[in-house]
C-alpha cells in the first residue's frame, strides 16, 4: 500500500524552501494543495484578488499583459518548472498585475496566500522566512527585466 506522506516532503525538497524554519514550513504545508492547469487555461487574471501564489512543478506558465486595442494580450515572460509565480499577494493592494496562463500543461503547488497573510501578522518568523525568499526572486526578476530593456535598446532587430 502506498503511503500518502502529504506535500510536506515535496515542499521541503524544493530549493525555494531550502533551510526554512521547520515550524514555518509546517504552516505553509497546511496551506498547500496540488493543482493542474491545461494549456491555455487561465490561472489568474489581471486585477483579480491575489490570494494564492504558485510553485511550478512541471510545465510552463505565461504572464500576459492586456493591451487595449489589441486582440489578446502580450506575453511578457514565461515561468518554468521550479520557479515561483506571483508576488502580488505580498504587496498591497494584493491584486494581480498580469494574467497568468498555462502555456503547456502546468502542474503546480497552490499556496493559499490569503491564509498565509493572516498568519504572518501573528507569526513574524513565518513572515520573515517568506519575505527572505521572495525578495531575492523579485530582485532577480527586476534585474532581468532591466537587462531586457538594455537588450531591446542596444541589440538590433533581426
Amino acid at each position, binding site marked *: 500500500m502506498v503511503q500518502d506522506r502529504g506535500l510536506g516532503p515535496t515542499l521541503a525538497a524544493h530549493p525555494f524552501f531550502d533551510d526554512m524554519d521547520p515550524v514555518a514550513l509546517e504552516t505553509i504545508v497546511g496551506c498547500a494543495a496540488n493543482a493542474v492547469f491545461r494549456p491555455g487555461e487561465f490561472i489568474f487574471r489581471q486585477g483579480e484578488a491575489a490570494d494564492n501564489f504558485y510553485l511550478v512543478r512541471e510545465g510552463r506558465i505565461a504572464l500576459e499583459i492586456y493591451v487595449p486595442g489589441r486582440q489578446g494580450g502580450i*506575453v511578457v515572460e514565461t515561468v*518554468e518548472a521550479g520557479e515561483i509565480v506571483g508576488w502580488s499577494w505580498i504587496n498591497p493592494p494584493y491584486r494581480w498585475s498580469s494574467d497568468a496562463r498555462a*502555456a503547456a500543461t502546468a502542474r503546480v503547488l497552490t499556496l493559499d496566500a490569503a491564509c498565509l497573510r493572516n498568519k504572518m501578522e501573528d507569526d513574524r518568523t513565518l513572515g520573515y522566512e517568506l519575505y527572505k525568499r521572495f525578495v531575492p526572486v523579485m530582485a532577480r526578476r527586476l534585474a532581468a527585466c532591466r537587462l*531586457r530593456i538594455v537588450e*531591446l535598446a542596444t541589440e538590433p*532587430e*533581426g
Partner: protein
Amino acid sequence: MPDSPLVALAPGVSPVPGEDIHTPRPFRIVQVKREVAGVFTWKLAACDGNPCACRPGQFNMLTAFGVGEVPISVSGDCRNQGELVHTIRAVGPVTRAMENLKRGAVVGVRGPFGRSWPVDEITGYDVLFVTGTIGLAPLRPLILEVLARRQEFGKVVICYGSRGTHDILYEADLHTWRGRFDTNVHVTVHVAPSGYRGRVGSVAAAVRIARIDPLSTQAFVCRSEAMTRPAVDALAERGVTTDRIWTTLERSMKCGVGLCGHCQFGPTFMCKDGPVYRFDTIERLFGMREI
C-alpha cells in the same frame, strides 16, 4: 594591459598569399535571401573562380562600389570554399546600398581577416552557444562545423533570443538543429502574442537551465557589447569560467589589417587580435568605460 597574454588562437586563414590586401577582389552575388526585416544574406562567388577560404569567426571587408566598405562576418559553411556567405543588416548608407543590389551584381571582397573561433582546441568538451538576434550570424559557421564533426564533442546546446516571434534569424536552421537528437536548442523571445507556448524572457534564463557539464563546457557568446557581460555572468553562475568563454567583438573596424587604429581595444586591435577573444584575456578591459 591585461594580466594574461592574449591567447594564441589558430589565426585562421589569411588572404591568398601575394594578394594585395588593400584591393577588393570582385565577387558576383549569386543569391540574395531576405531574412527578417532589414536583414539579408548574400551568397557570393569569386569572379576569377578562385576558392574563398575562410574560417568560422573571421570577417571580410565587403565593398559596394561607389558607396563604401564595411566589415561583415562570414556566416556560411566555411567547408564550402566555392562560395562566400554573408548575412548583412541594413543599418547605414553602405549596407542600405547593399540591400538594393540584386543577383548578378558585383561587389568587392577583401579578406578573410581576423582570428577564428577555436574548433580543434575544444574537442571533447560540451559546447554552448549563447546569442541573440543577428549575433547568430557570426556563430553559424561554427555551429555548422561543430555539428558536421558532432562525434568530437560532448553535449551541444544553442541558446538564442530574439525580440519577437517575427524576427528569429535562420529560423529554418534552428528548427533543423532542434530536430537533431544530439543537439538542444532553446529559443526565447522578449515578447509574444497571447497563447504563445514557447519561452518568453531573456537568453540568460535559458543559459541557467541549459543541460551542460559546466566544468567541461566551452561557451561561445555573440551578443552586443552591452549584453556580453550579462551572458558571461550567467555562465559564471553555472560554473563556466571565463577561460572557457569565447566572444567576438566588432567595433569600428575600417582597414581590417590593424593599421588604421579605429578598432583599437586597449592594447589589441579587434580586426587583427580579434574579433574572437577568449574572455579572460579581455575581462579587465571589458569593464573600462574609457575604452
